[in-house]
């Protein structure tokens, strides 16, 4: 069995960071489900958050579009792609919210 060499100071911790990633936490769908069952999310609040994100992004895109700098085109396209993803997520969220309401109604 190899001996574990514990970093002795700030510099050696920095060396560790160059050698390893620091990811931690369960990654299974079951773990995500357990987290949400333990700490339920409010769909209206989640959707509100996503709408806020969309408004903010849209504002940024509009501001950048007015100036029409060619150098901004890539960033504008990235933001628009993010907006499209968010629109899909909002649609998915609304569907899930609606199904949750229907389930409650029939319970």
């Amino acid at each position, binding site marked *: 069995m190899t001996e*574990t*060499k*514990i*970093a*002795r*100071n*700030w510099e050696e*911790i*920095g060396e*560790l*960071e*160059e*050698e*390893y*990633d*620091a*990811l*931690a*936490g*369960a*990654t*299974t769908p*079951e*773990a*995500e489900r357990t*987290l*949400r069952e333990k*700490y339920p*999310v*409010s769909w209206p*609040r*989640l959707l509100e*958050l*996503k709408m*806020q*994100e969309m408004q*903010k*992004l849209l504002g940024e895109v509009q501001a950048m579009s007015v100036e029409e700098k060619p150098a901004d085109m890539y960033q504008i396209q*990235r933001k628009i*792609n*993010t907006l499209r*993803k*968010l629109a899909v997520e909002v649609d998915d969220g609304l569907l899930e919210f609606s199904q949750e309401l229907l389930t409650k109604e029939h319970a």
Partner: protein
Amino acid sequence: MKVKIVVAATGEEVIAEIRPARLDDVILWQRWKGQMPAAAEDAHWRWDEYILLAEMHPRELACFILLAEGEAQGLMLLELEHENDLGEKDIHGLHISTAPWNRLPEKRFKYVGSLLVAIAVKLSIARGCEGRLWLESLPGAEGFYRRLGMIELGERSPGEGLVQFKFDADRAASFSRKMEEGFLE
């Protein structure tokens, strides 16, 4: 809280900030998503929802963000009401993640992961848990947590079988002393 991180390629120190994540930080996480390799083990983690969960359950959850150069360099979700294998109250690192550009082989900044862990230890001390911390490491990070001085549990996490690590009070104190240099206030 002001901290310092280091550019891996040059050794240049950069001032960063760690604070509780806010809803408007979600936009910063959105910038990760485009760069996250699809095969990343945490690619499906929803930090927008974790930030919201922490906002909705402030007594049980806390979410922290490490910011530098206008970008989120790391994120961490903590469960505040948890017990370790000895039945002692501790803090559970539910999710710890770094920006895609702070991962191997690229690694723009050093100390993002260790500073997040150090903040979790500080919070544990502030909550009377003496620095005790619990987490499940993803396979590529086991050496990191082992060599930070965390204690490896014999038993793996249920279901996924991840290696579990903990800081007891003594190990947490030792780690905190080594990390003092990173805190600027």
